[in-house]
């Protein structure tokens, strides 16, 4: 006894052992014995959730909506209409960016109708020649940082164009250019809310834990149920997935701002908004920029997964290449994704770190030199693409758009490795 008194941990351990063996010997192994197997108490729950989702999306709260294509009213569920409306909004944004880069009619259709586009042949948004995007990226890199970034951006875009991945790459880019800013803004918003209110923080943190530990694929089904299939669904899944790290890093950054900086802001007479926008967020910039970097990386990581629910672009092609074991093509596509990620990340970083020169006494041309350069570039490249039309005749205009898989490729080289083994 003296031994057990001196080591109470051993006493506990021995007691637990005794209880264990007592239970082991007394509990009878039988399916009806509650102590042996817990009855399926929650058996109905998955079915219930299923029924609930279906009811919500098809039956609950029916409303009359006008369908412009059928030109008549029809009944639909409220939630379904709301989510469809939201999807259409997201899709419109993605299509808008996509058509600036690749051309198309959907944006024009959104403002008019399919009939209008059908009747008027001119009503097509022309694609931006890839040379403009290349020049624009170089210009942007130079304006934001300097020669190094200009070179990186130029090489990346040139690689994508020359290797014939232009169209899927621009599809992915349009998808990321919507998903990433939305994720950043949402993350900043929720991060600042969590910083301001302790209640919001205690609610958000466990949600973030769940969101970040959940496998990527598990987002896809609920998103598909509520928002359907397509680029918008991919973007929504991506936003849900990319926002948590941004929230977390925003919160972390804001919390790390030294109290003296906050006090200094208060003593200079900042209002709440000035405090947040001019003192806290810029001071926490380092962490917030890591957040945006994470968002961009997550968006491109999701590019492939989102292709399962209909997101077009590099991810979808990668999925196909994977299914067909086309290792060379998969490699080239993978490099494209990485290049887009790196360029976007560096550009956003350079943009955030850009300094203002207060002493520059510039005239109009100097102040708007990059804008003017871009207009000149646009003109030259458009002329070039018309010249290309003349040179290549009815064939592919390489000065305008390089179609998918019409560029140079290293695929046979890699494929040889797979085939010879097989």
């Amino acid at each position, binding site marked *: 006894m003296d031994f057990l008194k001196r080591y109470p941990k051993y006493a506990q351990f021995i007691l637990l052992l005794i209880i264990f063996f007592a239970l082991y010997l007394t509990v009878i192994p039988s399916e009806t014995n509650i102590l042996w197997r817990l009855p399926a108490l929650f058996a109905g729950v998955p079915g219930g959730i299923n029924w609930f989702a279906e009811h919500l999306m098809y039956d609950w709260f029916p409303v009359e909506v006008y369908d412009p294509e059928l030109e008549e009213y029809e009944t639909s569920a409220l939630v379904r209409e709301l989510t469809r409306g939201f999807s259409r909004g997201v899709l419109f944004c993605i299509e808008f960016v996509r058509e600036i880069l690749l051309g198309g009619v959907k944006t024009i259709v959104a403002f008019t109708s399919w009939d209008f586009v059908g009747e008027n042949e001119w009503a097509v948004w022309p694609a931006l020649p890839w040379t403009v995007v290349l020049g624009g990226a170089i210009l942007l890199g130079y304006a934001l940082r300097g020669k190094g970034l200009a070179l990186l951006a130029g090489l990346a875009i040139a690689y994508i164009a020359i290797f014939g991945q232009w169209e899927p790459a621009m599809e992915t880019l349009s998808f990321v250019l919507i998903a990433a800013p939305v994720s950043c803004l949402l993350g900043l918003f929720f991060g600042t809310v969590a910083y301001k209110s302790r209640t919001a923080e205690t609610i958000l943190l466990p949600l973030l834990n769940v969101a970040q530990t959940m496998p990527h694929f598990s987002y896809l089904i609920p998103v598909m149920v509520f928002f359907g299939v397509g680029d918008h669904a991919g973007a929504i899944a991506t936003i849900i997935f990319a926002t948590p790290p941004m929230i977390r890093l925003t919160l972390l950054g804001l919390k790390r701002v030294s109290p*003296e*900086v906050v*006090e200094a802001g208060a*003593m*200079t*007479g900042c209002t709440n908004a000035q405090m947040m926008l001019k003192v806290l967020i*810029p001071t926490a910039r380092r962490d917030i920029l890591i957040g945006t970097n994470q968002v961009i990386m997550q968006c491109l990581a999701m590019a492939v997964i989102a292709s399962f629910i209909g997101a077009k672009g590099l991810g979808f092609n990668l999925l196909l290449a994977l299914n067909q074991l086309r290792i060379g093509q998969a490699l080239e596509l993978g490099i494209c994704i990485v290049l887009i990620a790196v360029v976007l990340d560096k550009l956003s970083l350079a943009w955030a770190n850009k*300094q203002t020169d207060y002493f520059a006494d510039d005239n109009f041309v100097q102040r708007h030199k990059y804008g003017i350069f871009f207009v000149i570039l646009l003109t030259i490249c458009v002329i070039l693409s018309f010249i290309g039309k003349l040179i290549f005749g009815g064939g592919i205009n390489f000065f305008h758009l390089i179609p998918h898989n019409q560029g140079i490729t290293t695929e046979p080289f890699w494929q040889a490795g797979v085939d010879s083994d097989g």
Partner: protein
Amino acid sequence: MSSQISVENRAKPVIKCSSVYKVFGENAKKLLAQSNGRIDAKIFKDAGCVVGVNNASFEVYEGEILVVMGLSGSGKSTLLRCISRLTDTTAGDIFIDGQDLLAMTSKQLIEVRRNKMGMVFQNFGLLPHKTVLENIAFPLQVKGKSTDESMKRALEMVELVGLDGRENYFPRQLSGGQQQRVGIARSLAVEPDIWFLDEPFSALDPLIRKEMQDEFLRLQGVLNKTILFVTHDFNEALRLADRIAIMKDGVIEQLDTPANIVLRPATEYVRKFTEEVPREKVLKIESVMEPAVDQSLLGPLQVSKDAIIYMVAEAVLTEPKHVAVVNDNGDIVGSIHASKIITMLFGQTGAYDDKA
């Protein structure tokens, strides 16, 4: 400078605190109401409360440097933050230029801070993403001044604190002393009437600290602000202050001129501080001089009444006659004899009196 504060100024204090209490903890207000203003530290501690400031009442007059001195944890920074309303005061009243600070709405408070107050922080509190110039211009831009105007003013401030040529440096590219100069310039950019300094030189090494103290006195000579200066360095307090408030455990133990604090410590705690201080290095001639004697007894030597005894002791000791003590205008206001200095340096400290 204390003697220069006129009677009218005393009637209208710039900062007036009466029975200010700051107690940290959840039930602070209730406990304070129960205790009726008499704080028993033990009861508060048992209730999980920490007393920051305990019944502080004092006034700061226009153009005066009041130094709040105390060891860490004595509540000096808390007191400063109560007066700048960076923390909420638990009880008591604070008036800034006669306005009730604690009753102000947040809008009024912002106005007061934008126009009347400037503050310098121990670790500078600079915005890391802004250059020197942008940091200094920041309070002006917050006020809504145009970029041109605020930059022009910021350039003036850069010149005032001697940072010319470093306008476009970032805080991280500057040394501690230079960063604090930026902090000082920023706090002065809006031309505040009241200047709060929270241990501004404590993070600097001794040589730079001395230099910055000189700089501070030079600036105050030019600007003549009402200053509340917090420090834990007694020598710094003696050097800069018109009056010193010594704090211990949230209580102001003594509030008086440096000479009086050294000569007549009010409590045992204050006495301990002053014990180590060489008096001749702190006291001005003014505090040991005697009434002016007849012209015939005066030697040719004249010393300023603001001169530190130590600095002029040798000259006075070699003068056989009485030495004339003059004010800034050259008028004779008193006299001093070598024998007085000898007593001062080697004799009993209680043997002379303060005439300030």
